[in-house]
């Protein structure tokens, strides 16, 4: 494996540790006895003692953190107060829904954003560019819940084409119908931001002297386009990576609006019910996904621009 990949992975480890520390401290910063937060209210003395020992609550904070970390790494996130089920299985279940929705929304946002952005950048200043920019600005500035509700009113209430909420009964093609509106809602903002960034990038790259030099060599428009894409790619990937991270965060609102049973809805429930172990676990997992996404961007970028391998 190239050295730079190992380096990037090594950089991501402290970030992940810091994230875990913050999640750990959540329990201890929250008012009240951490034990009462971790355990269901009707827990008996045996459970309390067992939990106390397990979490080492009589020990100093660093030791507690280390213990908690060991548990987490081995897949034990504790038990949900609300449901009494292990947090891990709650998260795993919700994550399946969320990742699927996020994946579809990401592809949508990515494809629409890069296409619109590239077209607008190439035909900088023309009517096409203005239309693309208008679409982008709408995507960026419309609030999620508003867009979601408007889509529901149009496509579910008035036209009755698509379901307004929920995820359907089972994993089948039918479920895709439930995903259309939340995916569009979720993709709107990243699509807008990606459009704007890619447009600026492409226009900027086209203005570079080397593009004139490529023309001077007699390369075809298609060949020159490939050069432009490879030059714009690293920055575009960075923007896209961050946007997809935000998309995961944006799913909290969107999943709530559409009652989509993913991590967003789970987080929302956890907050409302003060289900601290669930909250802690969900935030940790979402934050780690964000870290992983950034790591992926860091690894992919230099494949397009060799200058980034240094440093």
């Amino acid at each position: 494996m190239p050295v730079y990949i190992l380096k990037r992975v090594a950089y991501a480890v402290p970030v992940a540790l810091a994230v875990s520390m913050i999640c750990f401290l959540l329990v201890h910063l929250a008012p009240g006895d951490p034990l009462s937060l971790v355990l269901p209210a009707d827990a008996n003395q045996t459970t309390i003692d067992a939990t106390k020992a397990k979490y080492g609550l009589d020990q100093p904070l660093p030791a507690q953190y280390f213990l908690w970390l060991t548990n987490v790494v081995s897949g034990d996130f504790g038990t949900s107060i609300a449901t009494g089920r292990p947090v891990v299985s709650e998260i795993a279940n919700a994550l399946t829904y969320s990742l699927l929705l996020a994946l579809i929304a990401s592809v949508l946002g990515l494809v629409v954003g890069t296409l619109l952005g590239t077209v607008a950048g190439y035909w900088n200043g023309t009517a096409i560019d203005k239309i693309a920019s208008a679409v982008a600005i709408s995507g960026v500035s419309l609030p999620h819940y508003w867009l979601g509700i408007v889509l529901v009113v149009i496509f579910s209430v008035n036209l009755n084409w698509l379901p307004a909420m929920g995820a359907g009964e089972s994993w089948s093609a039918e479920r895709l119908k439930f995903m259309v509106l939340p995916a569009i809602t979720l993709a709107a903002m990243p699509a807008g931001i990606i459009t704007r960034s890619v447009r600026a990038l492409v226009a900027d790259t086209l203005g570079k002297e080397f593009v004139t030099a490529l023309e001077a060599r007699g390369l075809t428009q298609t060949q020159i386009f490939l050069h432009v894409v490879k030059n714009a790619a690293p920055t575009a990937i960075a923007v896209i990576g961050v946007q997809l991270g935000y998309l995961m965060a944006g799913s909290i609102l969107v999943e709530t609006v559409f009652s989509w049973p993913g991590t967003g809805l789970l987080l929302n429930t956890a907050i409302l019910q003060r289900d601290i172990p669930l909250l802690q676990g969900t935030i940790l997992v979402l934050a780690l996904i964000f870290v992983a996404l950034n790591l992926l961007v860091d690894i992919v970028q230099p494949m397009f621009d060799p200058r980034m391998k240094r440093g």
Partner: protein
Amino acid sequence: MSAFTAREPLLSVRDLTVGFKTDRGPITALDRISFDLGRGEVLGLIGESGSGKSVTMRALLRILPQKRTTISGSILMEGRDVLALKRRELASYRGNDVAMIFQEPSLAFDPVFTVGRQIAETVVRHKQCSWDAAYARALEMLELVRIPSAKSRLDNYPHEMSGGMRQRAMIALALACSPKLLLADEPTTALDATVQIQVILLLRELQKELGMATIFVTHDVGVAAEISDRVAVMYAGRIVEMGSAADVLKSPAHPYARGLLSSTIHGAMAGERVEAIPGMPPDLANMPSGCAFSPRCAMAMPECRNVIPAPASVGAGRSAACIRVGSVAA
């Protein structure tokens, strides 16, 4: 179809005029320039900054920004009208018939492709050969421009080369398809002084060896004298004097050329850049009436403000655009 015979010039430029739309209004960057270039001939293009040297070169390749530029006049390359070429014909003309070396090699290479790949890409494009053959050609070219351990340099990205080596690679790229005309736009100004000399010597040697016609833009009169058969002196978008390098540089006829040469006669020996004549070149958006040089000209007469002088013959193969040219040249 016009039959092209060997006696005709390779390149024939007539009344080439280039205008730009700018924020400050329309400007005429080139005003009716005409010149011929024979096969294998080297033309030195000199003049102060902003006189239109780069615009001339870019017009020959038609790489000026399309939306803002108007071009008129004619450019005949081997009898073909370059300004009338369709998009595809133009793409086969560029880089194949006419190639350009840019002033800043660090800006003219695509930073994210290897140098070898960029040379090979151009060769494949024009010679329709395999990539293997194109890479072999790229290697041959890097060796020709004397880049040490050329084989491993093929895989270098532009940023992995020094400035001088990058410009050598740019020369290799430009010559890879054996163009009939090479445009070198101040190919050494971005380089260190010692490297400049090496690159100039290399270019002169390659020109002798490969025999392509060359237009060489430079600020440096010494370099122009060294490398050119003929010289054209530009001022504010016009060619004010043209003739054999020996004639023009020894006894310039136009007052501007005289000023330019006398102000650099010592500098030229040391390879320095052209120094300014008192005053400033005119603002292209706000040109003086008559001769553009008249406001700075020590010999200007009232009449100079009324007419734009046309190039007139001042001896065999020489011309100058000055109404006082007879009296000045005497």
